[in-house]
Structure formats: structure tokens, C-alpha cells
């Protein structure tokens, strides 16, 4: 369970987070939906302790990343905003590196790496250096890095950017599978369809605040619209910065 309470954060005059509060329960996919610049990435970085909020608190289960960043990071898998690969390492070596950083050793590590490689259907990529990988293949490596240690929480920042249909499907299937295993999944997106297709709960963020919260159906009912897109536009009051 990830819970964010009253986060505020300013960069100079810009208020990136302005009292943001929401919960992402276990066994559910929570979507953080908002236009570009709404504060989604800043919020996620605060949760895993890479940025410090001016006030407020972000908890993973009961751990505050601000106080104990290492403990917080042990509990989560991260699919970051930018994922650069080590081009001179093979996919398998990269995944093993991050597995080791999460404390997996020897046979245990190898087993975890093999399992995640098979799960993501990237066996034929495993021993190739990542220099020539396509965007979809890179995404798979990044995803494998995020879940190799089987975290109880998974945080994804705009995971479907630049993915083709097949890669998007693999991603969605994986997220549903993890949800079924009780993983708490929090992802940010500005893509409406993705959120509608995947999320159990949607948190609409605009200007660093929660504009609305609920299941996609609830949001539609709340605004009296039949499509989530229309509901969304109504909630944030503009259609700027939103991809259909």
C-alpha cells in the first residue's frame, strides 16, 4: 500500500505539488492521470525518496522514503521516467546487476533473472548486448529490472511511451498478472485509453492537487459523462496536454 499525504513541493515560484493526497491499495492498479506538468513525476520521485517534499509524507506500507530511503526502495520496483540501458552489457547481465543490488545472490539471483526473462518472453534477447535494441525490447529490459526481485509495490512512470501494440499488450498482461498476485501498482499516465483499460482506481491530478478520485465508472458517473475522456476534461476544466 502506498499512501501520499498532503505533499507540497515548489520549484522557485512554481508549485509542482500542492497538498497532494491519495492511496494506492494492494492488489489494485492505481492510475495517476494528469496533463503534462501536473506533478506526476515529481510525486513518484518523492515516493521513492529521490526528491524531497517541502511538507507532507509519502509512505510505502509504513516506511517513509524521506527517513529511510534504502528500506523504502527495497519494497518497490521502479520503472522510471527515463530508462537508459547499459549498452555494453547483455540484457541478462543488466537484470542480474539490479537483482544483486536488491540483495539477491548466487543461485537465487540466477533463478530470479531466468524467471523474469522467461516471463517477459525475452529469452532470445537475454545474451545480446542491448546496444541495438528496439524501443519495445528496451522497455522489456527496464520492466524486467523493475520486477526481478518480485517487489510488493510497483511504480511506473508513463510506462507505455513509444511502445507498439504488441509491447503495450505485454505490459498490460504483466500488470494484470501482478495485480492478481496482490501487488500494489501505481502508474502515471497522460494516455486516457491506457488508464481506462487498466486501472481499478484513477487519481486525476492537476496543478499538483487531486482533482478527482475513483474508479473509471465512478468518475464518469460523477461528471454525468459516458466516456472517461469527457469526464476527465470536465474534471480538470481543459483538454490541454491530454492524449486521447
Amino acid at each position: 500500500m502506498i499512501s501520499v499525504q498532503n505533499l507540497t513541493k515548489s520549484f522557485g515560484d512554481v508549485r509542482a505539488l500542492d497538498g497532494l493526497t491519495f492511496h494506492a491499495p494492494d492488489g489494485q492498479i492505481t492510475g495517476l492521470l494528469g496533463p503534462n506538468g501536473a506533478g506526476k513525476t515529481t510525486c513518484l520521485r518523492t515516493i521513492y525518496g529521490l526528491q524531497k517534499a517541502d511538507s507532507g509524507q509519502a509512505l510505502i506500507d509504513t516506511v517513509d522514503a524521506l527517513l529511510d530511503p534504502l528500506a523504502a526502495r527495497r519494497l518497490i520496483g521502479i520503472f522510471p521516467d527515463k530508462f537508459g540501458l547499459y549498452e555494453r552489457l547483455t540484457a541478462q547481465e543488466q537484470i542480474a546487476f539490479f537483482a544483486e543490488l536488491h540483495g539477491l545472490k548466487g543461485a537465487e539471483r540466477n533463478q530470479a533473472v531466468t524467471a523474469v526473462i522467461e516471463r517477459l518472453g525475452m529469452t532470445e534477447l537475454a545474451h545480446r548486448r542491448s546496444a541495438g535494441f528496439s524501443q519495445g525490447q528496451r522497455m522489456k529490459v527496464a520492466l524486467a529490472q523493475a520486477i526481478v526481485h518480485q517487489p510488493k509495490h510497483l511504480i511506473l512512470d508513463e510506462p507505455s511511451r513509444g511502445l507498439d501494440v504488441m509491447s503495450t499488450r505485454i505490459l498490460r498482461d504483466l500488470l494484470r498478472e501482478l495485480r492478481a498476485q496482490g501487488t500494489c501498482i501505481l502508474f502515471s499516465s497522460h494516455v486516457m485509453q491506457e488508464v481506462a483499460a487498466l486501472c481499478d482506481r484513477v487519481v486525476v491530478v492537476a496543478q499538483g492537487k487531486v482533482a478527482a478520485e475513483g474508479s473509471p465508472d465512478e468518475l464518469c458517473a460523477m461528471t454525468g459523462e459516458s466516456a472517461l475522456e469527457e469526464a476527465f476534461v470536465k474534471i480538470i476544466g481543459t483538454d490541454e496536454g491530454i492524449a486521447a
Partner: protein
Amino acid sequence: MSSAIVTVWRKELRDAVRDRRSVLAAMSYAFFGPVLMAVAFFFLVSQMTDDSDVKIDMQGTEHAAALVEFLAAAGIEQREEPWPTGRQPIALEFPADWDAAIAAGEPARVVFNADFSNQQQRAEISRVTQALQNYSQQIAQVRLLARGLHPQLMQPIDVVRQDSATKGSRAALLLGSVLVFILLSVFWSGMNVAIDISAGERERNSLEFLLSQPLSSAELVAGKTLTAASFAMFGAVLSLVIIPFVFTYVPLERIGISVDLAWQTLALMAVMLVPLALFATALQLFVSFRAKSFKEAQTYISFLLMVPMLASFGIEFARIKHQALYYLPLTGQHQAFLDLIKGEPLNVFAAVASAVITLLCSGLLMLGIARMLRSEKVVFGL
């Protein structure tokens, strides 16, 4: 050592070893540097000890056959080819009454014609002068012996010449530049790796994810410093191995220098370079973690490289002497190396102290980098 440090170290080493540019950078300095230096020394030495034959014009050689034979043995011979332009002829002329004068015990006259102010021909002229004097002395000794006198009578004082001039200082210059070269190898060899694992990490967008892993930034920095320092040491050891090997081909003994680098000395030097390698790479990481791209970091680092270069060359050639030099990073190792290469006893206390101080400085730098990586301003360039 924490296992996260080892994990980072191992991963970065594997990554760096596969980077041809980094490996080449580390090796090229170690390889081409000593070879270049050896070639330069080789020419210097052969210029200083040129003992090829001197060819001069000689007239009347038929009158003084014995002297001509003596001169030939000293490498002074009759010139067949014309003098090159810009060179004044050097000529000896023996008169027809030479033999008669020698036999009568009178001074035999030889005319020595040359431009005695010509700097370029000074070596040749002095060799001819020397040879004539030696011959004259030899005849004088024979004459004294024939008259029952000891030749030592003609040598009332015994001058013992000890040359402390050009050859000696040139030798110091040669060895000094070798030392500076070895010291700088730790700064050169790890440079490319240091940039790649810091500014390069940021450039390829992998820094954020790496910093989101459950390891402290101090562990991350330690692993990365060890990686770059490993490369620095690789280059340094390569230089240390290659330098004595290359210098066996340079006839340094002919100018009175003995470079006696036993393997124990080399091993000791390598050990003393370890703290310096850590210091050099920590310094480079400190600078290049602030850069946004590989190129930007390269610019900063090249400026940074000037500092140790100026420091070590300055101390070497300005012959600065100060006690503090024995204890500071870089200069401490430099002074210890100077003692070692001169065959003087090593100042053990100073060497250990400078190693400890160098390690402390590296540790502080690493803590500084770790602190920097916890700052979101630096990490995200806000």
C-alpha cells in the same frame, strides 16, 4: 566491504572493459609514452656521446707516418669528401723536416688550422687537440725514459677531474621526466572510465534509476571510484613494466646514468601509486558528476589534468624543496619516487604519512560526491 560496493565495482569493470575507447585510452598512454620518451632519450644520448670518426684534411702525412697512425687509432682520419657548406675545414700540415726534428729532439712543428670559435665543430677540434697532446706526451715520456729519468717527473701535480656539469644535470632531467610520467599515468589512464561512469551515466539516462536502487550513494560512489582507480592502476602498472624494458634499449650508461629499477623498486612504486590512483579518480568523478554530458565532462577534466601536470613538472624542474611536499598528495609520492630512483633510503614515515593523507583526501572527495548525488539539484539539474 559492503556487497553493494562489490556489485557496482564488478558491473562497472565489466562495462568498462568492453568499452574499447576506455581500454585504448588506458593502454595508449602506458605504451606510447615510454616509447616516445625512449626515442627522445636515444637521440639525446647519441648526440651527447658521438664517437664516430673525425675526418680532417691532412697534408704531408708521408713525413709523419707514426703520428698519422696514432691519429687513426684515435679515430682521426684523412678526409676524402668535401666539407659540407657552413663547416670550416679542419686541417693539419706536417712539414718535410718532421722526422728530422723528432730524431734531433727538437720541437717538431705541426700547423693546426681551424675555426676555433665555431661551436658546432668544437667537439671535433678538441678531439684533434687532445690527440696531438697525447702523442706529444707519449714522445716526451719515451725521451725521458731513454735518458734514465722517471716520466712522473714531468707530472708535478695530479688533477682529478670530477665532472658535475652538463651530464649530471641532464641525467637528473631525464630521470625526472620519467618520474613525472609515471605519476601522471594514474591521472590519464582512468580518465575515460571516470567520465563514462559519471557524466556518461547521466547522458544515457540511467543515473536516475541507479539512484533509486536500495544502496546508499556512498556505496555507489565507492564502487565507481574503485572501478576508475582499477583502470588508473592498470595503466600505471603497464607504464612501470614497460619503462625499464624500453630503457634497456637506450644506452644511458654511456652518459653516466644508471637507471637501476629493480622489480622490488617497481613493485613499491606501484603500491605507492594506489592511494594516488584513488585520489585522481575521486577528483575526476567529483568534477564529471557535475557535467551534463560526456563532452562537457571531458572539457572540465582536461583543465583538471593541467593541475597535476603543472604541479609535478613545476616541482621537478624548478627544483623546489620544502618539507610539506613530502606529505601532500601527488608531491609526496613524487618525492618518495625521487629518493627511490636515486637509490637513497626511502623516508618511510613521510611515505606512509603521504599515503594516509592521500587516502583521507580521496575519502573526503568521495563523501562530497555522495552528498552531491543526494541533492536533487545536482541529480536532476534543477
